[in-house]
């Protein structure tokens, strides 16, 4: 019984992705699913079948548990981290908007229990204009404009959490909250009144406490197996616990399918000691796309640039487009001999073909146990149209790939969280559907699946 593949499936589900029965990764949409691609290649799990038929020209395997610590972030890991960021912001944004909408609509507040009503004191001065301002700001948010996000997770190589040093640190930032705290009259081009700002800050504090304390949600890893994925998911766990806690508290008000799957927690916490998992990992070699880039090289710089790219523009030309190659060492004769008869020409190559309790410093509860006790919640998809949120066809679009950027004739996906998170491109939430409240698709139905 494989342990690694279910672990990977759980990780991907947390990122808002789904795995088909044949081991292919897809982006969940309201009606069906769209293939998840990277650089034109289908993302797949390293199942026995895919390892036997790797087809490196058409497939790329998700295998972050084999990590080269000497290298930078791999292509696969980078895209996964961006998908995780996308999913966390979808959840965070939905909660913020729903609660503010509820806080400004007295007609619906009678439904709240005393425990649920606690948040009303945080938004007591908010009104319809506050809600409008929030929607305007959210319409301007972009998956790749990290400085605008509710929450942004990145990885740091060699850092400290508290007074302990770690090989990898998952760093959690709250850019939206920090911008509000600056007190500027405008936020991302939207004018905010003092009471708007105070209401939003109060609400954010209620949803995820201690955002103003630097590094409180950072988590580190000294795993001897795969410190990067461990640090990233430990950081996810740190923020998912209070968020899931809140989602459960507002059951019936917040969509059930916002719950963040955490079936991976137990295995993650036992990553270095699970010998069965270790044997399986050792039996699954490193796969292309997971190697990581050489630190400091142009490849890594390009990758980091892609991470923070803010304009929907083609990336800098590939190395092959930079003119004459740089030649080191002695040159060969100007007139080379022709290829040996019988051998193919050099220009025509033949390509190869958890049940552990989850507690946080903020007193988060055992959200996993809660999720597990409600199978219906785990399987829920879609949350109807009554909430009115709609970033258009977000997540439904096939991810635009880097290949499509450098090849205009190729398929170019529209702006979407799916595209943003995995395509490394800029576009805004709601771009496709014309805004958070427009279009026919339902946000929750499209990308949030627990």
């Amino acid at each position, binding site marked *: 019984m494989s342990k690694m593949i279910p672990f990977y499936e759980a990780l991907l589900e947390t990122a808002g992705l789904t795995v088909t029965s044949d081991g292919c990764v897809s982006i969940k949409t309201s009606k069906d699913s769209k293939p998840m691609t990277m650089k034109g290649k289908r993302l797949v799990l390293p199942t026995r079948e895919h390892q036997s038929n*790797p087809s490196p020209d058409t497939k790329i395997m998700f295998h972050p548990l084999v990590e080269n*610590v000497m290298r930078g972030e791999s292509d696969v890991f980078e895209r996964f981290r961006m998908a995780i960021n996308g999913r966390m912001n979808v959840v965070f944004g939905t909660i913020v908007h729903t609660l503010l909408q509820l806080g400004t609509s007295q007609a619906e507040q009678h439904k709240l229990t005393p425990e649920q009503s606690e948040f009303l004191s945080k938004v007591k001065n908010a009104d319809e204009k506050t809600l409008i301002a929030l929607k305007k700001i959210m319409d301007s948010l972009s998956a790749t404009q990290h400085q605008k996000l509710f929450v942004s997770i990145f990885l740091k190589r060699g850092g400290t959490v508290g007074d302990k040093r770690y090989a990898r640190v998952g760093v959690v930032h709250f850019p939206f909250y920090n911008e509000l705290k600056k007190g500027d009259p405008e936020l991302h081009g939207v004018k905010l009144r003092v009471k708007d700002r105070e209401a939003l800050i109060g609400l954010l504090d209620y949803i995820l406490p201690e955002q103003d304390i630097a590094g409180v949600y950072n988590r580190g890893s000294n795993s001897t197996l795969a410190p990067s994925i461990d640090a990233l998911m430990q950081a996810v766990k740190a923020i998912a616990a209070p968020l899931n806690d809140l989602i459960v508290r507002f059951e019936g008000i917040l969509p059930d399918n916002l719950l963040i799957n955490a079936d991976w927690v137990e295995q993650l916490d036992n990553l270095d000691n699970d010998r069965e998992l270790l*044997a399986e990992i050792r039996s*699954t070699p490193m796969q292309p796309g997971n190697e990581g880039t050489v*630190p400091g*090289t142009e490849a890594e710089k390009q990758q980091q640039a892609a991470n923070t790219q803010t304009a929907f523009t083609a990336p800098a030309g590939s190395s092959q487009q930079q003119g004459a190659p740089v030649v080191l060492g002695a040159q060969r004769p100007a007139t080379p001999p022709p290829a040996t008869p019988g051998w193919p020409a050099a220009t025509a190559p033949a390509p190869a073909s958890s049940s552990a309790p989850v507690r946080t410093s903020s007193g988060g509860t055992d959200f996993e146990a809660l999720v597990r006790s409600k199978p219906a919640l785990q399987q829920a998809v879609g949350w109807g149209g009554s909430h009115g949120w709609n970033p258009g066809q977000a997540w439904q679009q096939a991810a635009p790939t880097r290949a499509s950027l450098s090849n205009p004739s190729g398929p170019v996906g529209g702006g979407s969280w799916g595209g943003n998170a995995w395509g490394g491109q800029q576009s805004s939430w709601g771009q496709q559907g014309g805004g958070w409240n427009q279009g026919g698709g339902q946000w929750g139905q499209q990308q949030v699946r627990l």
Partner: protein
Amino acid sequence: MHQFVGNGMGDKFRVRQLVMVETSGNAQQYRRPYETVVTPGVQQLVMDRLDPKQTVTPASLAGVANQFIVPSAAPEKAVAIPYGWEQRRLRFMMLLDHIGPAGVEITQVITGYSEFFDPSLQGSIDPHMNFYVNSTMALRRVVARTAIGNRDYYNVADAAHVIVDNAWENVHQSQKEFRMRPADVYSTMTRIHLDQAVNADMNDTRTLVTQLPQKSWRRNANTTAYASALFENYQTAMKLDAFGQTQDQILSQARGHSVEQSVAQDPFMNAINKIRGSQNGNAFTVHDLLRLDPHAMDDDIALLSYQGQASPINPGMGNNTFFNTGAMEVGWGAANQYTQIATILSHSIPAIMVESAIANIIVHCTNRNEFRQPQVLVSGMRDFPSMAGTTIDMTQFIEKFKWRVANEVLNDVSFNNDLDYAFNLKLDLLGDSIIEISMSGGPFESFTLPSFCDALLVPIVTNNDQRALQVASDFTSLFDSVLNSNDIAPGASYHGQSGANWGQL
């Protein structure tokens, strides 16, 4: 035996035996170059094994090397051979006596393959058909005076693959290949900082595979020997480091310690190239060979075996069957543990065979026993000295072979026997090698490798410059971690770039 005659360009050559066997074709073969995967656990393991003050030997890294440097599981490239893998061709093994200008006699073993095979009705072969040299080996006979009289000893003076890009056109061609021999890795290390600064294609002609043949020690295909050579030569360069030397100067010294024998130093290839009037290439024709030794194709010297013809030739331990084309194609094309281990076995063990003077061997290896310890059983073999007409006691060589296979290969592929395995190996340096693998109690999967042309498949050649750079970069980091410091804080050892962020705001 005939006298030394012919046009050896100053040297004397005598072809003692030329065995040519038809092979009706092979499945598509793929290149799987080395790749480094340094996990934190492995990094610590290497640091524990290597003492900066002690000399590094292959035994130092036995059981560890394959955990951080392995042939890639995913095939990098479908390897080309003249007229395709389905082409009928001859594989050959030539025993050649050579007396150099200094009067020292050595026996060379040349192996390779022809570009095609299309015999005449009388069974003659095309005198202009190219034979490609795959590998060369030199056996040196040493006479020792002992209390019981003179005794002959043989040692392997040189055993190398011949690396050449027969499709080479010029430095501007789109598909280029790069060498990753230890000396080449040091060269690549000196340009890592350039790649960090220059956004362009890097054509480092120091490591390009061109039409000029280069030799690569067969032991470079054994990961344990390869990794230990990289550590040892760097360590030696550091010891000889004059005060104030730069890293580049240390790497140059390390490169000097790693230099391999050149083709110009290879008696046979040097003579053939002179006969052909060219310094290029690894090919010769029957016509060229006859100029080297007019008796080379005499009936008692040149033995030809092809399909439909009864032949006394027995180069493959009585297994003169012909491989069915395409039968193993799916297996070699996979990117899983089985193909990775098959690749390791098919390269590492022949490297040990050559150094033990073994031409072909049947080996059974397993750790399916009470104490889960590696067991190596040899059930048949043939050695090079006996093929050269000398019978010697091979006992010590077989024992050495078994010990090295267990320690340098089996412990590595099994993660020090954490993984259960059973291997049945029928390895023939002059023909096809058949490898049967069973892991964790699973069924046996079979792989067939054309060993007669394994220079095309060596893991020290890649067509991906980034891969060469990555291997060099990872070894640089390991040198820093292991040899340059004894006190590494967690995290700080990760390429010394503490604080580098990914996806930072």
